[in-house]
């Protein structure tokens, strides 16, 4: 017993730490479940080792990655958007820029060609050959264009990828790839060239085929026109990039060309085109066209503004014009329409339209007649209806027509009766009107005498009042005679006293009559008054007719005679 205990004690003393470790190991061995912490230590390394061996890891993980991606897109699309925005943004911008460039180019071309003689010739050619005009233009303006680009596996001659410009007619690109490879082999064999010496270029008609050789694949570009040397550098760059990016796929190519889909953008970069007329040449035409359009817009805007201003001005004028009331006014497409009321005595709207600078044919107006109560219109209406002689003045005071001056008693009576019938007139005030009768006026004139000094034929200032009275009477008489449809004949009679010789007296009488007649001629008398054309014709009658045969005076003889429609009133 003691021996056993001693041994145990000794073991404990000597092997205590190791014993503890052994116990732990035993526990771990008994517990087969794997600790996540242990796995996490080796997981990345395990992935790397397995990934080098085969594609099994990718195959296994692909569905999970895909599901995870789909779930992320559904749950928080913004995260994906944020992640790919830096890549997609420039790509989209580039695509839009290209599309715009090609659109502008196409527009410039068609603009250029449609305006030039050459364009007309090309249109003829298109018509003659039955080809689309765009194609004819393209062929003439083309400096070079890469029609097709082939990426071909060098050993097998199999097509890895192919791109073609829009509208290019493509034969079977797979067969073409084989033949291209065969031709290269043939040429190399025929000339005994080494493997490094290759066919780099051949030309058929307007086409040039450039071949850029790589270690695993070669690039063949079918180019129409004369390409610049820089394009070959572009081909070289693209081929190098493809070799770098697709090294594994090229190395292990077994006929599955689907793996080369990612090279599409690189090949599309090679599909370049350059046209004879650059942007700079086209730009002025575009500017001219743009400028013309802008000018046309400005001109149109300015004329439209002016037309609108004229129309507004016309409406303002019509609004302030007495006797015109616009109830509706509108304008569409350069045509104007007016509706309203109009007093027949108001100003003609057509004249207002002309004054506003608007062509009458563009205005359609429809006016209904009415009587305006504007004082100005009432006055005009009264003048039109009552026909006052020029010796009468009308004035409208509220609803009262006030008449002043002088007129024949017949007119005065008639006006007093008719005045209230004038629309707008309620009362008539004729208190300031003096009624004169023709016999009174004739009497006044025929009894008037202008006195002269001894031996003088000059009208003295003292006689002017007498002469003025004759003139006033003459005017009134003229008005009265005109209204009665007659006319007045006036004779001016000069005379001298008994002193002096008869010849001298006759001469003096004549001179005196002439002096008075001269004053009468200078005054404005009515149209119905006939002044003598000369003095001579009345001289012979002088002695017989005058009531003052031996005085230094001039007298008048006024007579009324019916109006002769043939001769009419005569004025000196």
């Amino acid at each position, binding site marked *: 017993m003691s021996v056993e205990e001693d041994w145990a004690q000794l073991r404990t003393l000597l092997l205590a730490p190791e014993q503890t470790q052994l116990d732990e190991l035993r526990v771990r061995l008994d517990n087969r479940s794997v600790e996540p912490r242990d796995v996490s230590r080796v997981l990345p390394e395990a992935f790397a080792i397995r990934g080098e061996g085969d594609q099994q890891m990718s195959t296994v993980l692909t569905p999970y990655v895909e599901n995870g991606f789909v779930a992320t897109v559904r749950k928080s699309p913004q995260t994906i958007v944020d992640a790919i925005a830096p890549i997609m943004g420039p790509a989209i911008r580039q695509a839009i820029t290209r599309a715009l460039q090609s659109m502008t180019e196409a527009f410039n071309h068609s603009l250029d060609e449609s305006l030039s003689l050459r364009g007309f010739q090309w249109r003829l050619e298109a018509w003659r050959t039955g080809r689309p005009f765009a194609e004819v233009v393209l062929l003439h303006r083309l400096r070079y264009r890469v029609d097709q680009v082939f990426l071909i*596996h*060098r*050993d*097998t*001659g*199999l*097509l890895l990828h192919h791109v073609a410009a829009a509208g290019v007619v493509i*034969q*079977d690109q*797979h*067969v*073409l*790839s*084989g*033949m291209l490879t*065969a*031709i290269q*082999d*043939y040429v*190399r*064999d025929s000339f005994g060239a080494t*493997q490094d010496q290759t066919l780099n270029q051949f030309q058929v008609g307007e086409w040039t085929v450039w071949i850029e050789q790589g270690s695993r694949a070669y690039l063949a570009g079918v180019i129409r026109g004369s390409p610049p040397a820089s394009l070959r550098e572009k081909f070289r760059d693209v081929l190098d990039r493809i070799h770098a990016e697709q090294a594994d796929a090229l190395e*292990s190519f*077994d*006929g*599955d*060309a*689907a793996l080369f889909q990612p090279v599409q953008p690189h090949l599309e970069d090679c599909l370049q085109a350059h046209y004879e007329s650059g942007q700079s040449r086209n730009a002025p035409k575009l500017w001219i066209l743009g400028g013309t359009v802008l000018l046309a817009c400005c001109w149109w805007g300015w004329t439209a503004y002016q037309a609108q201003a004229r129309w507004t001005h016309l409406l303002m004028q019509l609004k302030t014009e007495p006797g015109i009331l616009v109830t509706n006014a509108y304008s569409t497409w350069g045509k104007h329409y007016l509706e309203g009321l109009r007093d027949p005595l108001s100003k003609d709207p057509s004249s207002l339209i002309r004054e506003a600078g608007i062509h009458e044919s563009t205005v359609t107006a429809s006016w209904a007649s009415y009587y305006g109560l504007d004082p100005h219109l009432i006055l005009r209406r009264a003048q039109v209806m009552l026909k006052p002689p020029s010796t009468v003045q009308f004035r409208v005071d509220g609803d009262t027509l006030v008449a002043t001056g002088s007129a024949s008693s017949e007119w005065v009576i008639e006006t007093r009766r008719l005045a209230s019938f004038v629309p707008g007139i309620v009362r008539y005030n004729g208190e300031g009107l003096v009624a004169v009768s023709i016999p009174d006026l004739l009497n006044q004139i025929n009894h008037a005498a202008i006195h002269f000094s001894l031996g003088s034929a000059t009208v003295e200032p003292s006689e002017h009042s007498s002469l003025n009275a004759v003139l006033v009477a003459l005017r009134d008489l003229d008005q009265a005679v005109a209204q009665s449809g007659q006319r007045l004949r006036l004779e001016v009679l000069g005379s001298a006293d008994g002193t002096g010789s008869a010849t001298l007296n006759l001469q003096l009488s004549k001179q005196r009559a002439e002096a008075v007649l001269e004053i009468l001629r200078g005054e404005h008398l009515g149209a119905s008054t006939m002044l003598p054309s000369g003095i001579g014709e009345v001289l012979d009658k002088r002695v017989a007719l005058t009531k003052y045969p031996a005085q230094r005076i001039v007298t008048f003889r006024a007579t009324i005679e019916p109006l002769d429609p043939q001769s009419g009133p005569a004025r000196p």
Partner: protein
Amino acid sequence: MMQKKVCLLGGFAVGKTSLVRRYVTNVFSEHYQTTIGVTVEKKMVTVDRQDMMLMLWDLYGEDEFQHVRESYLRGSSGYILVLDGTRKATLDTARLLQQTVVRTVGPLPFVAIINKSDLRSEWEIDQSVIDQLREQGWPVFLGSAKLGQGVDELFARLAEMLLSAAPPPRVSR
């Protein structure tokens, strides 16, 4: 889609082109065969529901004046040997061509077809020779360009062989 380069080989006037003409997409004139010694044609086949595009390099008939350009053989995944049943000499040519291929690009899958089965009575290649070839591992078909026989089976068999074969050995250039 899987693509494979396949060479069409045979002696002069064995009827290679006639045999496949109606089964292929032919873009180029046969004139090329006499100028550069090859015409490339395309044949679509379906094996195990998988489409395969065979690019047929129809090489000019081997004769005493013109030999097959070995450079055309490079990159092939397989080949077709065409014989004329009425001319025994074409079998020798076929053997030589097969050796050339093996020497140039290695032991590739291939099929052989003996043409002019419609003139069987005039054949110089008898059944014992055919059996012998088959014993040597040659998949031999009998066909007729005139009657359009044997060609589909020929392509189907070759396609199967290509599909199951390992990628062709790489030939450094």
